[in-house]
């Protein structure tokens, strides 16, 4: 009786969960499917879910009409570049706070977090004017610098929570065994710290890939990443749903796939270690 009952409730919850999750996922699925339709089919009523003539025409046109790969490459440079540069600064900082924590460490961490709360519009004009005067508007260098700075607090926090879990005794033991600082870092610390660093890198690439304030304001054509490229579709001319879908699919596919691999890191990184 009770087994039968729990089976029934399992089926019920499964059905409910699949229904809701499909509804949540539906806009993405719909975009994906529409990208393979002709423009006429994309707005046909009744809409067809799967049964239409699949075509790759939209992808061909999107790539032909706009330099899609350049925008893609810009996104890669901005997100990966800023994340690597950020690591270079955040790893030593987090390391030092995790292993040489003083009374001030907690305050410094909180202060770093508070810089994240500075609204971008508060510094919009100075940054815009500085970029204009330095010739950094619409340049990848400028965006990499900005993206590094805005993600630095999250990177430092995230690395800090990882490093904090490395037992300090390991260091002492290796020192007792006569390891030099170089050996200590290379053979003892790097292997333990690497997973945390990789997770931080992954999460920050995702965040930078999707950042849509500075990338929209500071770029025009040359350095525009995918966020800005898609924004150019906001004023439609004629039939364009299928092409919008194709462009959107191209813009989000790589990061959704990366994202699925980073579920756990995401929780930990974005909750500042509060939830693991």
């Amino acid at each position, binding site marked *: 009786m009770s087994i039968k009952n729990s089976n029934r409730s399992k089926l019920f919850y499964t059905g409910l969960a699949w229904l809701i999750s499909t509804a949540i996922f539906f806009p993405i699925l719909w975009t994906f499917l529409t990208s393979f339709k002709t423009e006429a089919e994309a707005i046909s009523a009744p809409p067809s879910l799967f049964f239409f003539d699949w075509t790759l025409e939209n992808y061909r046109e999107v790539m032909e009409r706009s330099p899609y790969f350049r925008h893609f490459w810009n996104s890669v440079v901005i997100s990966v570049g800023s994340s690597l540069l950020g690591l270079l600064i955040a790893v030593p900082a987090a390391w030092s706070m995790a292993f040489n924590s003083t009374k001030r460490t907690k305050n410094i961490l909180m202060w770093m977090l508070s810089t994240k*709360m500075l*609204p971008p*519009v*508060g510094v919009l004009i100075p940054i815009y*004017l500085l970029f204009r005067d330095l010739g950094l508007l619409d340049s990848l260098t400028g965006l990499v610098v900005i993206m590094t700075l805005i993600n630095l607090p999250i990177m430092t926090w995230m690395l800090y929570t990882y490093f904090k879990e490395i037992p300090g005794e390991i260091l002492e033991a290796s020192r007792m065994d006569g390891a030099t600082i170089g050996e200590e870092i290379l053979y003892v610390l790097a292997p333990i710290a690497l997973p945390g660093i990789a997770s931080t890198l992954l999460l920050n690439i995702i965040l930078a890939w999707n950042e849509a304030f500075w990338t929209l304001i500071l770029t025009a054509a040359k350095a525009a990443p995918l966020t800005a490229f*898609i924004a150019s579709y*906001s004023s439609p001319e004629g039939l364009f749903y299928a092409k919008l879908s194709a462009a959107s699919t191209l813009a989000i596919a790589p990061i959704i796939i990366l994202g699925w691999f980073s579920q756990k890191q*995401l929780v930990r990184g974005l909750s500042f270690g509060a939830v693991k």
Partner: protein
Amino acid sequence: MATNNSRALARAMLSPAVILLLIWMVVPLVMTIYFSFLDYNLFMPGEHDFIGLLNYEFFLTDPAFVDSFFNTIILVVGVLFITLVGGTGLAILLDQAIYGRNFVRIMVLAPFFVMPTVSALVWKNMFMNPVNGLFAYFATSLGFEPIDFLSQMPLTSIIIIVSWQWLPFASLILLTAIQSLDREQLEAAELDGAGKFSRFRFMVLPHLSRAMTAVVLIETIFLLSIFAEILVTTAGGPGNASTNISYLIYSQSLLEFDVGMGSAGGLVAVIIANIVAIFLMRMIGKNIEG
């Protein structure tokens, strides 16, 4: 000696990050404050007169500011409410024994990785469009008049779009937190006759408070400065119906080239964010230790 050495090393490792963040915080902010006292329009070259607090007076008494202030609050509170309630519900559901849980979780999480410009344009055109959108199709086939979402209820529409983006995040964090709940305690409570509701109210909910704090903190940081979703859907309109503070300042400074007024507005935004931050930091200080 050795400790002095290592202390110096620790400081040297920490300082680049601290100095960079300090510069990033202080330099532009000081410039914003300076500009906010000037009569400075990019269209009018030449002298920028010092006009005291006039920019602030204009900005704060502009009806657009009052509108955008309340729009910002409605947007933040609305999305927080939807994602916290929906996220808790989803987290509890996904915590049940269900078939294909990993796949379900992947589907729920996906919208978080969609860039804001894509999700806003997809919702605007393919769902909310009053002629060709899916919602319009369902409305007409059921015999209703289709709703023109973005002109009839622009702010609500933006809340829907943004909630769709943030619901996955809230669900995932809360699910992770629920999964760390002590099952034996729950079972013991059940044996002692605690009902479903009281188990939720007195055991699950308190356990989730830390995770909820994290969700509120992170979401508020991002929601206070929503920009792209408004830019590509309504451009703040109709009128100021969907203008938030970020968008208002953007349009004043970069569309109307009023550097002085934009700076004054930017500073007001900073002050508002600081007030919110003080509350949040208190919350987080209690709930999250370094």
